[in-house]
């Protein structure tokens, strides 16, 4: 394997970490929304923290090896599809961070209700299904997929 193949492998491995970790977080969030007790929702939302190192490694790895590949493959500084991918990468990271903070808030509320009788209140149910928080999470997912689309499609290259 030459240097470019190594860089491509590490870049794609980082992308795998990012998308697989995000998928795991999304599945656990959906399972938490469908749970019947606050303790179950809190437990499932708490498991998301184990996917976070993978997501962070993916976020950093895609950027680091992506920029290295940009230089290594000799793409110009004005290559539009790379800038477009970077914009969506920033958007996905920002939205993912905001969605994560909102999930943490819901987890704390679920833990409080679990300690106080473990009966699902309407308020917690509404927090779990908050359309605004869900929209942020879906938007983060769409932005991540958009990066993948751009990197594979390479429009204009």
């Amino acid at each position: 394997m030459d240097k470019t193949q190594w860089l491509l492998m590490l870049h794609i491995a980082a992308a795998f970490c990012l998308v697989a970790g995000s998928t795991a977080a999304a599945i656990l969030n959906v399972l938490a929304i469908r749970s019947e007790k606050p303790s179950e929702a809190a437990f499932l939302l708490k498991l998301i923290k184990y996917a976070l190192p993978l997501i962070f490694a993916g976020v950093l790895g895609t950027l680091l090896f992506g920029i290295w590949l940009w230089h290594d493959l000799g793409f110009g500084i004005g290559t539009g599809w790379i800038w477009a991918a970077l914009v969506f990468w920033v958007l996905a990271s920002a939205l993912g961070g905001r969605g994560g903070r909102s999930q943490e808030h819901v987890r704390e509320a679920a833990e409080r209700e679990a300690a106080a009788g473990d009966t699902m209140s309407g308020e917690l149910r509404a927090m779990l299904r908050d359309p605004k928080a869900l929209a942020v999470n879906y938007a983060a997912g769409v932005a991540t997929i958009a990066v993948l689309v751009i990197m594979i499609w390479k429009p204009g290259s």
Partner: protein
Amino acid sequence: MIAFSRPFWPLFLHVLGAMTTVGAILTALLLLLAAWKRPDAVFLRRATFTTLLAAIPFYALLRVFGQVMYNREKDAFGGNDPTWVGIGFIFADAGALVLLITIGLAFWWLRSGKAIAARIATGTSSVLLVLLTIAMLAMSGKWGS
């Protein structure tokens, strides 16, 4: 570089399927590891089984569109497939078998609540994750080309 001249949709769907399959198996593994301390928890049994079922369509995307790309490109290999193609097929097909076994174990755990089923499923899902990771590294690094 062959990846740079491939048609968009088969490659995108193959890669997306592979990434989401790994995500679903990772989730199942997290749930199974969490179940070591509470194997009787019904919600964990249900969540694990549902997650593994969700991995089936993701895996189908990976496998079907991998085959579509191979059928388009096999002539370029001149009957002598590179190592990374062989690894991809062997590990993906072995992975399908391990996935089905893991789903069977999760179903057994769901119905019986027996801790042994969850523990064996933890082992099989770990094996599956390792198989998929090696296949991903081999294919993205084009091992042996």
